[in-house]
């Protein structure tokens, strides 16, 4: 056990909770969140609202179990980079996102806090990829060889 494995589990769990929470609730709630960022045309908003939670859940499970770890971590990195871009454009455009209640009650953080959080996750994931030999310990990838 090392810090890299712990961080890998943490990121995996975070993605599982994030994706799972969106998937078990009505899809319209997350569509409203995607809509509030005003970054995509309508048809893409619907595709994202349907597909992203599954992506988060699968990536989270793969990262947690250490299955296809490198590819899953790269996927996580791409997703987080996307989140950072979307949140940044919302901050620059001063979209009234925290005011609209789009995140329901549990997530009413101001956008700059979300940006700091996402950026930290991005750096941690990058770090895990750089130290991949240690990150991949206690994983199914090791078991399958």
């Amino acid at each position: 056990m090392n810090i890299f494995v712990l961080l890998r589990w943490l990121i995996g769990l975070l993605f599982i909770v994030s994706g799972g929470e969106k998937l078990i609730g009505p899809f319209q709630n997350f569509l409203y969140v995607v809509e509030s960022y005003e970054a995509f045309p309508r048809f893409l908003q619907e595709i994202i609202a349907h597909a992203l939670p599954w992506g988060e859940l699968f990536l989270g499970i793969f990262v947690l179990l250490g299955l296809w770890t490198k590819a899953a971590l790269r996927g996580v990195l791409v997703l987080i980079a996307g989140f950072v871009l979307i949140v940044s454009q919302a901050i620059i455009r001063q979209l009234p996102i925290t005011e609209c209640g789009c995140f329901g009650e549990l997530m009413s953080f101001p956008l700059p806090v979300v940006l700091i959080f996402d950026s930290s996750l991005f750096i941690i994931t990058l770090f895990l990829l750089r130290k991949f030999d240690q990150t991949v310990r206690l994983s199914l990838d090791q078991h399958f060889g």
Partner: protein
Amino acid sequence: MAKVKPSKTSFTFVILILCVAVVFGVKAYLMKGGFAAGGGIKARSKGNPQASVKIIEYIDFQCPACAHGAAVLKKYIENNPDSIYLEMHYYPLAMHKHAVTASIFAECAARQNKFWPFHDLVLEKQSDWKGFDDVKSAFFDMAAQAGLNAQQLQSCIIDPSIEEAVFKDKEEGAQKGVKSTPTYFINGEMAVGGRSLVEKLNQLIPPQNL
């Protein structure tokens, strides 16, 4: 007999299938309650009860998107008085400090059959009062404008059963999957936010009536 070790790919498929099964299982379990409409809230409903378009709205009076949605909905109802039926439910979000108070005043207005005039005033003037530290005097002023009896209102807003009714609405909403506001159930189908509301109404109401 030699043990057959599953391949990484087949193991991955099993994991993916399990995930999908768990998600749909949990979702089905949580949604078992259904999307039935609440009853006994005549004072908070308007339109033709036999209308082809039945809307149940979950509102937070301090939410800007709710104010915008209300203006849109008002226009649709004015243009189609017989085809839309609207039923209002409270969903005060914890992030809005005056949302519960606004809902309590609105429920008291409903008990004097003045819900809609009060609802319209509170939402129209939302940007005026939402920054106040104490909103009660602003709500009393709007209640007076809406024609409420001040004495009855005074005793109503301190009645604990009113707050209970507000939170009962909110709890029912949460059970139906409501998380943010405004959330609409249009003929039982969920739509969150003004844009989805307009899309859905445009599908259900002939364009010449918009």
